[in-house]
């Protein structure tokens, strides 16, 4: 049994891969850059003695995910974890079509494509966990992160469907709405609330694997904020600039 970590070479994905490897789990890492992947795979093998395979592919190209069927050890994959996604500084609703497509693909389409590739084998084994990673940015649409938030909201809907689809099976589907995490994505940004460490988030996610928890917001202090944001009537919400 092994876990596929999509986005496993840096940030939260790296922390997740390390947490799982430390628990003795075999891994398949997927990310854009072969050298990053090779280095992380070498580290995990050397430190924890686990089997680590990897494949370099660009999440902006969902069709490329088909290649994952050929990754060594693909048949043993029982866990699919998606700490993958990317933002764009000029994502204000006026991005050119190719950029919009790439953003939606990286955050949503490639995840769906990868799940559909492996879901049959999880269902056949009647075991496994699929973990989607969303963002508090998708709680309410706003004047920035327009495409990113739309893709992440779409992802949340997709994971709800997936959970419904697998409800009668042994496959667990989980979704995390994450606040700010201290990764390259948030580095250099002025943020109104503190960033969580990727290691802390990874420990929680790894600890929940296999449980039927549905959707969770992390870190926990975002929960009341999410409720309040959602409850805010449009008349007030439109005045917010954040």
């Amino acid at each position, binding site marked *: 049994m092994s876990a596929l970590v999509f986005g496993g*070479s*840096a*940030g939260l994905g*790296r922390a997740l891969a390390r947490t799982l490897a430390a628990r003795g789990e075999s891994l398949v890492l997927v990310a854009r*850059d072969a*050298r*990053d992947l090779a*280095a*992380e795979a*070498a*580290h995990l093998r*050397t*430190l924890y003695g686990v089997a680590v395979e990897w494949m370099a592919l660009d999440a902006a190209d969902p069709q490329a995910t088909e290649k994952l069927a050929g990754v060594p050890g693909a048949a043993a994959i029982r866990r699919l974890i998606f700490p993958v996604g*990317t*933002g*764009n*500084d*000029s994502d204000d609703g006026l991005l050119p079509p190719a*950029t919009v497509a790439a953003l939606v693909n990286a955050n949503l389409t490639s995840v769906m494509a990868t799940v559909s590739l492996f879901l049959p084998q999880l269902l056949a084994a009647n075991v496994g966990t699929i973990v989607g990673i969303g963002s508090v940015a998708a709680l309410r649409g706003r004047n920035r992160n327009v495409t990113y938030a739309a893709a992440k909201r779409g992802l949340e809907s997709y994971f709800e469907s997936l959970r419904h689809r697998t409800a009668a099976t042994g496959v667990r589907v989980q979704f995390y709405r994450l606040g700010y995490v201290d*990764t*390259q*994505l948030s*580095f*250099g*940004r002025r943020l109104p609330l503190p960033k969580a460490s990727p290691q802390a988030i990874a420990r929680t996610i790894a600890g929940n694997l296999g449980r039927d928890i549905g959707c969770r917001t992390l870190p926990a202090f975002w929960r009341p904020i999410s409720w309040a944001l959602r409850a805010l009537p449009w008349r007030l919400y439109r005045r917010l600039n954040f």
Partner: protein
Amino acid sequence: MARDGTASWPAGPSETHSLVTMDGGVRVAGATVQRPDRYAYFRERDGAMPAIPRGAGFSFAAASFGAGATTIDLRSFDRVLGFDARSGQVEVEAGATLGALFEFLAARGFYLPIQPGHHRITVGGCIAANVHGKNPARDGTFVSQVESVRVFHPRHGEIDLTPQKESTLFAATCGGLGLTGIIVSARLRAQRLPGAAFHVVHRQVATIAEGASVLREQSSRSDLMYAWFDCSRRGQAFERGMVVTGEFVSEPSDPVAFKLSPSRFSSQSRARLPFSLLNPISLRLMNAIYFRLLRRSGTANVALAEALYPTRANELYLSLFGRRGFHECQAIVPYDQVAEFVGQLRDQATRTGVRITLAVAKPFDGESELIRFDGRGTSLAIEIPRATAASQLMREIDRLVVALGGRPNVIKDSRLPRDIFEATYPECDRFRTVLRQWDPKRLFRSELSDRLGL
């Protein structure tokens, strides 16, 4: 990511930080910091801007910021890339910490004999500062356990350096203060771990010169050695001290699992206290207690991790200096000049009214190449609280070091003037030449390199 798309280097998201040296002497309020975590960052490019790599940021001098350079925090490159259990060779990325490497190696029956005393210091930092360990006279300095180094420079791309291949650049990089480029990874030679503890012996000595000669005598058979002196008193008791030597307790060396305690220490957290708690009274009290503790321990077995990384005590001690900080001067003084050095130091300390909080000696027996801190003699590290009179004493010590043929450690003193550096490092001009041939635009720079004219 869209933010990485610019043509110049270094490119990527940046933050503005206030950075300060560990000794509190140099502070840059608006330092631009990048924290790359992908290899794509190390791509050959034109139009590069000044930059300087940074590890844990524990240097006493401003080696990883300043001079308008973008500080590049390498700590996300922290991986162990390979390990050969027969030879003990380990390949690591530059941001790997000594502690993580120690936990990894000890569990496999190996360790690095040469390393400084805090487990969060990075391998890249150790190479760039060519640090020393517990017995430099016998073991040499960090460079002697480096097999190869991979360096990135935007003009040249990545290049592997060894003592055989690109030997000049290898020599300039090990101890080159990060000025040849970014150390990306390195191959180090770890040694078989002889045991999980040191058998430590404490010997009381009356003078620093006596301590220095005991260190010299014992250096061939000790795995760990230093001498601590209480210089907080006036008169006869000025230099009383304790020589500490340790040897591995030789047990059948089963692999040992160590888990180091986490530390959040930084040059910022060190300076949290708004004022210094080290006044003449507290200092005498503290030193008297410490002296008695050492004397009472006599001989004892000390666990390896504790002996290698006495972090708790050091962190607390350095924090007592408060926001204003301290001065350290570490200098290798020729063996036959130690007594003269100490005598004049005592006179100057008395004259300027400065209390020396700490003096630590270690034996050295190597050659200084380029700008590496090495030589033959006794290294004396002296710490004093930062104050006007203290700067005066530091200038006197500078003169003394030059007059007696000593050599100061540039990484330990954030104020060391260029003329003193030039007078004590005969190969500094050769280092400058090597650097300019490799990098005519002198892309990698820091407050330290600007101050020393490198």
